[in-house]
């Protein structure tokens, strides 16, 4: 079964093809990793799939529905959620509020009760906060709940973004370098968390440079090079593919992959 399917995606900026003819698909509970050198177009692909950029060509289907060109919030309504490589946290809000915003689609949001602070609004707030705190605990940020997110360290912000994305209870989760800036222990925790999320039936698409993590966790791996798909296969197939070694694992990654 396939839940997210991207076909022949292409987008260019000022004549430069950032993504060119990339296709992939994931099913519930699967983890697909997308790897490739810096500038390969991984983030851009995420931006297209999540509706942040409008693709030049290609189609995106979510649960069988054609969602090409839909706005990000429409995709979110259909169960797509993501994190950002370059942090996009709500700096002036507390960590807990950040995650509460993640519950936006799960909340009733009519204006009049909000203006007059009816009991139902207060009750809902309590519930949302409780759910947010539980998620913060999952990513190890419970103690930071009431700290302004802008003053959290980088690694904590990365995990905060994961918690916020999960708060929407997505069916598809795109993670853009979630372990960047995290130490070994934190990376281990994130590994664990992604596993858990997938086990609950969420389709995960992961962009990550930590090869150890990628090789261990992925069901399939797609390798991009300069916007084009290079190889797709199981971790073993990808690891053993000479083109991948040449294009990407050539330098330090090869050693890491060998160790993994």
């Amino acid at each position, binding site marked *: 079964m396939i839940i997210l399917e991207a076909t022949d995606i292409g987008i260019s900026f000022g004549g430069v093809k950032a993504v060119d003819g990339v296709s992939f698909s994931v099913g519930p509970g699967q983890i697909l990793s997308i790897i490739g050198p810096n500038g390969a177009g991984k983030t851009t692909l995420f931006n297209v799939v999540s509706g942040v950029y409008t693709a030049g060509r290609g189609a995106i289907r979510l649960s069988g529905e054609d969602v090409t060109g839909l*706005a990000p919030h429409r995709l979110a309504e259909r169960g797509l959620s*993501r994190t950002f490589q370059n942090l996009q*946290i709500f700096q002036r809000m507390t960590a807990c509020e950040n995650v509460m*915003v993640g519950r936006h689609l799960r909340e009733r949001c009519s204006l009049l009760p909000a203006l007059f602070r009816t009991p139902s609004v207060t009750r809902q707030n309590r519930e949302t906060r409780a759910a947010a705190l539980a998620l913060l605990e999952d990513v190890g940020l419970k103690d930071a709940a009431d700290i302004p997110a802008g003053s959290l360290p980088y690694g904590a912000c990365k995990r905060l973004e994961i918690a916020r994305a999960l708060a929407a209870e997505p069916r598809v989760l795109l993670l853009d370098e979630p372990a960047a800036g995290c130490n070994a222990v934190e990376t281990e925790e994130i590994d664990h968390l992604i596993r858990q999320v997938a086990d609950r039936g969420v389709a995960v698409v992961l962009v990550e440079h930590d090869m150890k993590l990628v090789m261990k966790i992925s069901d399939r791996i797609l390798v991009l090079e300069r916007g084009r798909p290079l190889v797709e296969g199981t971790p073993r197939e990808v690891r053993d593919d000479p083109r991948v070694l040449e294009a990407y694992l050539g330098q330090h990654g090869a050693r890491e992959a060998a160790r993994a």
Partner: protein
Amino acid sequence: MRVLANQRFLTLAILAVVIAVLPFVFPSSYYFRVASLVWVSALAAVGLNILMGQAGQVSLGHAAFFGIGAYAVAIGPAHLGIPSWAALLIGALLSAVLAYLVGRPILRLKGHYLAIATLGLGVLVALVITTESSWTGGPDGMPVERLTLFGWRVSGSSTWYWVTGGLLLVGTWIALNLDETPTGRAFRALHDSEVAAQVVGVDVARFKLQAFVIAAVYASLAGSALAFMNGFINPDQAGFLHSVELVTMVVLGGLGSVLGSIVGAAVLITLPQALTVFQEYEHLLLGLIIIVAMIFMRNGIVPSLSSLLVRKARS
């Protein structure tokens, strides 16, 4: 949460106490008038702060809605035979509708482009008011019939003090309510990162529009109140300089701080009153004070002072 709930209570309590106590220290009715003027302006500023401070969208034409509210209660009774209170509601409705219609295309714009578009909207409304003199009295303005509610004729400076003070209290209560709701959080979220708000499902266009309409209604009600209070209205109330004044109140007090908007309004209204003793130096000093305040308290008066207090308390 606890802290925030307290802050909400604190803001309301401070405001209520100030409104209640001030009359005991006022030596003359002139002070009632100035204070009412502060409450009315603060009401508009508190609304604008929802748009600018919470949702992060600048409006350099907000006096347009102030003007619509003011002229609605002037024109309605005088030309159309509509009762004053109904004219007030119609003005608010008109402002909301205009904000809704124009807001959609305007709020797609960002930064300076949004600034010039809102500015343009403001200038256009002011121009219409100035030009359609058979309805509005043109540049000279027009008289406003006194407000009558259930046979009670609302007049006198101390009466208006309490009416406007009460209005501001309600407006402040509502603004504070909004802060801690899905809507308020959506505002603040899209202020910090539109794209992140979108990917968790916030319909950014819809919420910007909501903030714009809310702010427009606040300004409209404030405009109506001022018109009733003064018994007279002129196009300056809808003009660019008044828009700038409103923005300055919000920024000077502290973007995002409800109490800040009120403090900003108080400073900007009372200062020129105090400066009239300097007569012709009034504008010079006003400009100077705005510059100096923005340089040395760039986060606004209330946030700057409160962080100062926190630092004092820590050491």
